[in-house]
């Protein structure tokens, strides 16, 4: 089976500044890979490249079988990226947001309800406007949107940020469940203890390059 992510000597530039300088990485289906490294190392750029948001300047990049150097748009409806922003509409309720994002892939009402329930957002919380939620609740709403979108590759940038203990446990359980169901997860995080315990593999990102490090679990 082809790897979900296969990068060879990938160079990417943003605003004239090289953000990836020859990155090599292979990720197989069902893996949960932790990307760790200092600020500015290229972790977020790596995630955005895999999401088809950052163009490949040089090198070979295949994600879910799509050649990103030739076409970086066709992969987009198969990946779910949760970056520093949540991608939510503050004036809509939690249910409205999850319904909207689910509808972009044709999710049914039952799937929307299941996504809300999985992130503990069913009941009264589903009717609250996102603008009135805490940071942790907004993060959980964004994750529920990702669940509703049935993404094959989950790209998460600091997903634990702003979550309380219960939210973190729910997130970890959701990611493990998604991976066991066949999804592949890449997590960029500074919370090494928690994310490291979750990951099946840890890689270091330094100076825009990827260094394999260790088997985490």
């Amino acid at each position: 089976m082809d790897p979900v992510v296969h990068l060879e000597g990938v160079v990417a530039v943003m605003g004239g500044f090289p953000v990836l300088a020859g990155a090599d990485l292979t990720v197989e289906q069902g893996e949960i890979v932790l990307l760790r490294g200092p600020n500015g190392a290229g972790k977020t750029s790596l995630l955005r490249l895999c999401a088809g948001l950052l163009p490949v300047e040089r090198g070979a990049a295949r994600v879910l079988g799509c050649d990103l150097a030739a076409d970086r748009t066709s992969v987009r409806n198969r990946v779910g990226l949760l970056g520093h922003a949540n991608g939510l509409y503050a004036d809509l309720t939690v249910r409205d947001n999850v319904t909207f994002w689910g509808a972009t892939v044709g999710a049914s009402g039952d799937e929307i309800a299941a996504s809300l329930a999985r992130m503990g957002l069913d009941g009264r919380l589903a009717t609250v406007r996102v603008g009135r939620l805490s940071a942790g609740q907004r993060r959980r709403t964004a994750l529920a949107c990702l669940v509703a979108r049935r993404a094959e590759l989950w790209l998460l940038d600091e997903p634990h940020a702003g979550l309380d203990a219960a939210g973190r446990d729910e997130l970890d359980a959701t990611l493990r469940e998604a991976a066991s169901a066949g999804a592949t997860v890449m997590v960029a995080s500074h919370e090494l203890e928690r994310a490291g315990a979750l990951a099946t593999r840890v890689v270091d990102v330094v100076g825009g390059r990827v260094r394999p490090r260790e088997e985490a679990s």
Partner: protein
Amino acid sequence: MTAWKIARLVAAKDLRIEARSRVVTNQVLPFAALVMVMFAFALDNDDVLTRVAPGLVWLATMFSMLVLVQRAFAVETADGALDALQVAGVRPGGIFLGKAMALAAELAALEAVLLLGAIVLYKAQLRGPGVPLLLATFVAATIGLSFVGTLYGGLAAGAKGRETLLPLLMLPVVAPVLIGATRATEAALGTNGASPSEGWPWIGLLTLFAALFGVGGTLAFGSLIDE
């Protein structure tokens, strides 16, 4: 998912946001009404106001539209939703059409209030033979303005200083709509002795404008909002 389905989804979402936030009813409509009142204070002459009423209606529409467009894209960029729409593989043409549809609905409500304001404040007279022309003018101009507003709103969305950049980019482009819609509205209202038959050629210009920006926007929107 087809571009048309995406368009309906995005339009429904945008209109729901406006229904919940009530920015249009509580801020934009009062702003537009205030502009009309200020024109009346500034000109302070019934004859002059009646003569220039069509132009003032469309000027107030365009000033108010800047606020609507800013708002339409502020909700997309505030929490990275536009980026998320791209990642979700949502067809850019569908996003463009959906946002234009929602903007057109808001503009239609705005124009109805402004026309009513012109009749009450400026004593503009609506006559039976001019009604079809007036409706055609408002439909064609609204569609054209919504396409241009969405296109330039998307262009400015990722730019620094977008609040000041948008009027600079957009106002020169909508000048043909201002001219065409004003002339056609003058003909519909019989301003300065104009007859409705004089207004129909302007509908052709407004329709051509709407078609050009509709097709161009649908095709170019993806490149505009990309990196």
